[in-house]
């Protein structure tokens, strides 16, 4: 049995073998025809053209009622199909009303199809292991399609979802290309902040979102590099987000934080079509902070010295003591962040195929420079191939997709944003007259030294999947997914000797480089069997399957220094010292059995049962397996007799679900008590260090989800409203419990007997405001009101979390001092002494709760088409609070927000800001420190943003063979916010805000 075990590596060999056997038998089979079933009726050839009134529709499916025959319209909208004169043709096309037209002896039938809101009910929703008609879905699934993705000039898939999905909160963490986004689907479930990532699945293959960067190399970003940047939005057909138990339980242990299903574009039958899209544009920072100018700044500094009773400026106070020119003024934000990023994007697609076999080949290339000074560039390119095949009798189906993406990123090693904010406005010029970096005799750390220190990363990512299915008996389909991913990532961060002050006289012997190599391979096999049967007026369906997944991650972190020349810095062989800081190979294995039983009675009552038994290598012996399951129900009350005759309600569905999911995002091997190499040498030994405090007994985190929703369509679905209420409880919390430093470590992995609740309302409203041949206008609104609450935490008072959480409050709270204003006598900030002990003490007085979760958020999207014009725009809105940007102590040598000019100067002053100090006024220093941790440090960071606006124009051309579209797109064009310290969208402050991007381009199809 051991010899057959998948984990011996041999197992993987079987899959290509099985695959090749499939291939080898397919061609012999494709000769099969229906000849033996020839109709006795005479067949005539019917042809025609399908349009939407103006433009031809390609890929419309034309079938003959009661027969398996299907044809598709080609690129010109033309089709041919053979049918008997009294047959009935059915025309179906996604997003359009299905037409049923009797042949009535004609041989030419031209068709105008109408886009119809009613079709919303017909939209197929991908639920992962199965797909379901929107109207029959029992779960909560949000979807966006390529239509909305293509209007956005962005490179990250999470960016494409921002503001478009109810319940999905996405925050961009930096504007530097290649940086990350934070996503929370229905709030934070796990107390561990890094265990709230959803499961990503691309064409059926899980795609690990575990970071691939290393904190010593990904220094440009607030978080280490994420692999999600590799996914190319241009290749995506649709993104579905599974949110409730009904939809996520089938993903068991990995469904707790929701599931993001990504479906790539597939080939379409019809004429071989070429599509070329080229765009170019610019990006700039959305919003700068308002800072002091030289005059205001120096006034502050001088006053600070006066306040401190210092009459002669110390020798190191270069800004005020005359060392630096006091008439200089540089807007450092403009200087360091005020550049314009150039963005170029090219996409080419070739697609086509026959009724039985279709293909798609696409390729993209994208470059993006930065707003920083210097030549930095982010490049991304890739290719995607898809092939679809069905056998003649439609019993055998085969789908193969593969995508390969390369990213090449070159950025300064450190974000210049903090320097741009704190640097004294009269600090020296960055370059001297000769054009060299100016160190002004070593009196400052020239921030542009970081331009010589670079961060470079290269990511190659392959994701492949194949789905084979065969209809064994009528209604019984055998199916298996095979997937393989291979990611290779190399990241370096250099510190050449030129980044140091020349006063140190450092040579290239002091240059150093950090190198991170991460490789991750995974394979997955998921055999499934699917059965469906009509039972009277009902329909029953069942699905059973298994998952075997293996993921291998290799990481190698190295440090090298001492080079003979700075130009050899990337060559480890030229280094005098090379140290391996970390070298590891981690294996993650995952196994599951899953099933679904669905019963649909008369398309009115639907019951959906899903379940999964999961095992994960991330847990210790006896803790590896767990069961998860859910029940979902729907009642399509609009189909009831008492509502059948009404004219206003076109659709009505009530659905509810309840079930469990789990979370195993805990890292590998955490249950082992081990020593690992520290990579550091002493006395000829490479050291061994204790890896962690170990706990072999931790187990699964359990997440229980409850949801109820009402979906209604009015006036033939021209108004479609969905209101969902959910309540999720996460318990048995798996956390790195913060420990006192006296334990030798700061955390320990353990299950905490605490429960976190996420509840919320999600509303989506789609209205077709206007619909005619020439003018269409639809509006989509989504709104999420979410609340996060710590329900239970036995022993919180005595635990190490006692100053972090409060029962009944959200996880993302801050406990703060209560700021009460400035003492008019001393000019120092005052705080509420809540325990009346005469001093501001910790923790007693630091108990005011501030909730940093968004109170509500959403998006309002409008799509307008008028003849050849199309306009699409999205407003994103978030109601939230966040920290003010804090730049040290006002009066010290760092610039301050302009609001700081209103500082207290003498007794009796009624100022908004406290007394300036250079650091000698103990009371003011302490108060400033308390202030940043007080209610005074928190402010309204709500915003409304014109997230996306896209205008396109179809150029009317004489030829029918070419379609030409002109495109104008913009991201983050306008931002409305009361937040004063730069852009209000951030997780940790001091990083480049999201960019405002404007691009123009052209798309040709022929």
């Amino acid at each position, binding site marked *: *049995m051991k010899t*057959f*075990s998948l*984990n011996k590596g041999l197992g993987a060999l*079987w899959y290509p073998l*099985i695959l090749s056997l499939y291939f080898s038998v397919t061609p*012999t*089979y494709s*000769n*099969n*025809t229906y000849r033996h079933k020839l109709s006795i009726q005479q067949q005539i050839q019917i042809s025609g053209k399908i349009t939407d009134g103006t433009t031809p529709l390609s890929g419309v499916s034309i079938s003959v009622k009661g027969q398996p025959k299907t044809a598709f319209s080609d690129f010109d909208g033309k089709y041919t199909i053979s049918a008997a004169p009294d047959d009935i043709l059915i025309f179906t096309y996604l997003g359009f009303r299905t037409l049923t037209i009797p042949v009535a002896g004609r041989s030419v039938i031209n068709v105008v199809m109408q886009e119809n809101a009613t079709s919303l009910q017909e939209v197929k929703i991908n639920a992962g292991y199965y797909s379901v008609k929107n109207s029959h879905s029992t779960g909560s699934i949000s979807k966006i399609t390529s239509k909305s993705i293509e209007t956005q000039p962005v490179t990250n898939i999470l960016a494409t979802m921002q503001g478009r999905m109810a319940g999905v909160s996405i925050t961009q963490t930096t504007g530097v290309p290649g940086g990350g986004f934070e996503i929370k689907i229905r709030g934070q479930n796990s107390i561990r902040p890094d265990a709230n990532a959803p499961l990503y699945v691309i064409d059926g293959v899980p795609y690990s979102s575990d970071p691939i960067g290393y904190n010593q190399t990904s220094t440009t970003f607030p978080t280490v590099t994420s692999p999600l940047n590799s996914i190319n939005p241009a290749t995506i057909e649709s993104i579905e987000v599974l949110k409730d138990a009904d939809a996520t339980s089938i993903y068991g242990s990995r469904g707790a934080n929701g599931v993001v299903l990504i479906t790539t574009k597939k080939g379409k039958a019809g004429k071989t079509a070429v599509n070329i899209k080229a765009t170019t544009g610019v990006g700039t920072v959305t919003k700068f902070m308002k800072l002091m100018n030289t005059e205001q700044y120096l006034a502050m500094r001088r006053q600070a010295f006066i306040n401190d009773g210092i009459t002669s400026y110390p020798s*190191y106070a270069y800004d005020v003591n005359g060392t630096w020119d006091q008439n200089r003024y540089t807007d450092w934000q403009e200087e360091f962040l005020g550049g314009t990023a150039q963005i170029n994007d090219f996409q080419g697609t070739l697609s086509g195929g026959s009724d039985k076999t279709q293909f798609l080949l696409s390729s993209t290339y994208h470059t993006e420079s930065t707003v920083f000074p210097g030549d930095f560039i982010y490049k991304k390119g890739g290719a995607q191939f898809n092939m679809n095949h069905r056998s003649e009798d439609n019993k055998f189906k085969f789908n193969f997709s593969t995508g390969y993406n390369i990213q090449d990123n070159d950025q300064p090693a450190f974000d210049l944003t903090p320097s741009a904010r*704190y640097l004294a406005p009269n600090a020296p010029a960055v370059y001297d007259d000769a054009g060299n970096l100016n160190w002004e*005799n*070593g009196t400052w*750390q020239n921030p542009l030294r970081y331009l010589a220190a670079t961060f470079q990363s290269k990511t190659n990512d392959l994701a492949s999947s194949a789905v084979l299915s065969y209809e064994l008996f009528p209604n019984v389909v055998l199916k298996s997914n095979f997937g393989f991913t291979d990611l290779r990532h190399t990241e370096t961060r250099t510190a050449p000797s030129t980044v140091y*002050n020349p*006063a*140190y*006289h450092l040579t290239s*012997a002091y240059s150093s480089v950090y190198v991170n190599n991460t490789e991750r391979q995974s394979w997955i*096999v998921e*055999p499934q069997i699917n059965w469906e049967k009509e039972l009277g007026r009902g329909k029953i369906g069942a699905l059973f399957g298994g998952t*075997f997944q293996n993921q291998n991650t290799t990481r190698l972190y190295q440090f090298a220094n001492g080079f003979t020349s700075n130009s050899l810095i990337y060559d480890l062989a030229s280094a005098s010292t090379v140290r391996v800081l*970390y*070298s590891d*190979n*981690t*294996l993650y*294995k995952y*196994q599951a059995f899953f099933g679904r039983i669905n019963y649909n009675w008369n398309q009115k009552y639907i019951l959906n049962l899903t379940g999964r038994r999961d*095992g994960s*290598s991330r847990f210790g012996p006896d803790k*590896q397996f767990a069961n998860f399951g859910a029940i979902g129900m729907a009642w399509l009350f609009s189909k009831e007799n008492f509502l059948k005759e009404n004219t206003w309600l076109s659709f009505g569905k009530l659905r509810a679900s309840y079930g469990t999911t789990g979370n195993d995002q805990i890292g*590998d*091997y955490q249950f082992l*008590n*081990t*020593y690992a190499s520290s990579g550091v*040498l*002493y*006395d000829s030994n*490479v*050291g*061994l*260090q*204790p890896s962690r405090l170990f706990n072999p007994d931790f187990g699964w985190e359990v997440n229980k989800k409850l949801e109820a929703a009402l979906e209604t369509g009015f006036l033939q679905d021209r108004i479609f409203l969905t209101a969902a209420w959910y309540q999720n409880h996460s318990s048995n919390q798996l956390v790195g419990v*913060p*420990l*006192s*430093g006296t334990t*030798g*470590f700061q955390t320990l992995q353990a299950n905490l007997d605490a429960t976190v609740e996420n509840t919320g309302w999600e509303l989506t409203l789609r209205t077709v405001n206007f619909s005619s041949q020439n003018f269409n206008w639809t509006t989509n609104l989504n709104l999420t009101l979410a609340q996060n609450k710590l329900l239970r935490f036995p022993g919180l008072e005595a635990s190490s979390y006692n*100053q972090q959480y409060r029962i009944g409050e959200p996880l993302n709270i801050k406990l703060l001092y209560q700021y009460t204003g400035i003492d008019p006598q001393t000019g120092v900030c005052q705080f509420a002494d809540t325990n009346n002990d005469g001093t501001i003490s*910790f923790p007693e007085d630091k108990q005011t709760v501030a909730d940093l979760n968004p109170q509500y958020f959403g998006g309002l999207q409008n799509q307008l088409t008028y003849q050849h014009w199309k306009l699409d725009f999205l407003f994103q809105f978030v109601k939230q609070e966040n920290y003010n940007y804090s730049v040290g102590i006002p009066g010290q*040598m760092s610039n301050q927000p302009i609001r700081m000019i209103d500082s207290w100067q003498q007794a009796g002053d009624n100022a908004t800001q406290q007394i300036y100090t250079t*650091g*000698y006024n103990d009371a003011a*220093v*302490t108060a400033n420190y308390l202030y940043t941790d007080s209610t005074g440090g928190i402010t309204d960071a709500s915003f409304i943003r014109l997230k996306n606006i896209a205008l396109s124009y179809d150029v009317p051309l004489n030829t029918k063979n070419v379609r030409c579209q002109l495109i104008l797109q913009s991201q983050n064009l306008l931002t409305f916010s009361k937040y004063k310290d730069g852009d209000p969208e951030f997780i940790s402050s001091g990083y480049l805000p999201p960019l405002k991007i404007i691009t123009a381009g052209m798309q040709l199809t022929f």
Partner: protein
Amino acid sequence: MKTIHNTTFYMHYFLQMFLFASTFLCMTSCDSFVEVDLPKSQLTNVAVFDNYATADAALTDIYAKIRDQGLLTGMTSGLSNQLANYTDELICYGSPGDPALPFYLNTLLPANTSITDYWNISYNQIYAANAVIEGVEESDKLTVEEKDQLKGEALFIRALIHFYLTNLYGDLPYITATDYQKNNVAKKITVSEVYTNVISDLDSAINLLAQDYDNPERIRPNRFVAKALLARVYLYNGAWAEASNAASAVLNATDLYGLEDNIDGVFLKDSKETIWQLQPATSGKNTDEANSFIFFSGPPPLVALTDNLMDSFSTADLRKSNWTAAITDGSSTWYHPFKYKEFDYTATSVEYSIVFRLAEQYLIRAEARAQQGDLIGAKEDLNKIRERAGLDETTASSQQEIMEAILQERRWELFTEYGHRFFDLKRFGQIDAVLSLTKTGWNTTDRLFPLPQNELSINPNLRPQNSGY
């Protein structure tokens, strides 16, 4: 017919494949699929102490950590730089955000990252030492000699780190085991209780450690290193006789130690004066201290010696001429510590970071003797140090004068070494008088660091905060 055959054939194949795949998957679908072997880069804690080489690597890693981070590193984050900034030895020229500034400006707060790092890193080093002690005790594969050496060194490390911690933070827990459940709620004990534990650990270490160095480069503690620390511990405790005896034990080991006649030889790797030093990370690398202090043009990028210190040296003092260096830009002159002179890499390393050296033992004994009234003995020891520095014998005669001279001598001899100045001023009761002259807003409570804010939140047993914060 052929098509039907094909269909059957195909179906047959598909079925066969599917059954094959399912059987095969079912065979592997027992629990063993999700069991994984130990990662290649890790050893279980038991395996580490099954063999001397790995057990030794677990111990030497602690020295590497002491060298590279925390209290005793020679990098700018270590005490040598930060306490010199905190007292009257260095002036700080760092840019805003430089971790040295809160020390220099006397604006240390409970959330200061240096304060938190010292604490966490130190207890991590103590944890590693305790893990070695426990691992060695449970091992049945190591020999008695191996066990004694490993345990002796680990006990010494535990004592050393706790000694520095209690001098910086005051009352705190003394951690002697790896059990996190207990350590997480560890209770503070008083400084004098900490000292009792330090002395007990050092006594055990002295019994376990050999007289000779395990490595002739003196990079691993032997019995005398533990004695040298013990001498200092007794001195700080006012146990004058014991301090004097412990220092004598070291000073009398003349086959191992002796003062370097040439002042330029003191900080070299093979100095006879060295009791214990830390080996640099790689061959050819020299000390972090040199990198922290030396600069080549003014104004200084980080720190320079204070005028106060420079002016206190007499012109004849070789330590002024040889252990400091002047840098001028034409109009102004600055001085940097120049005890360690090798800034760059050399073919083989020429300087290691010296943690304990003989000169301090003379000064310990001088002070202990003076305190006991043995003024002649005290002067004798003091003059040894003065003589080597090219100075005449001390003119101090009364006990108080001699004590004053010893404090002054320690300042000249031990400047920018592991915060001696700070501890000396505290011990001599002069810290408020001296530092309130140079530090605006100096408070007597500033003689202790604040306890890290985060620690107070997590472990209520550490409350209250040290007074003044």
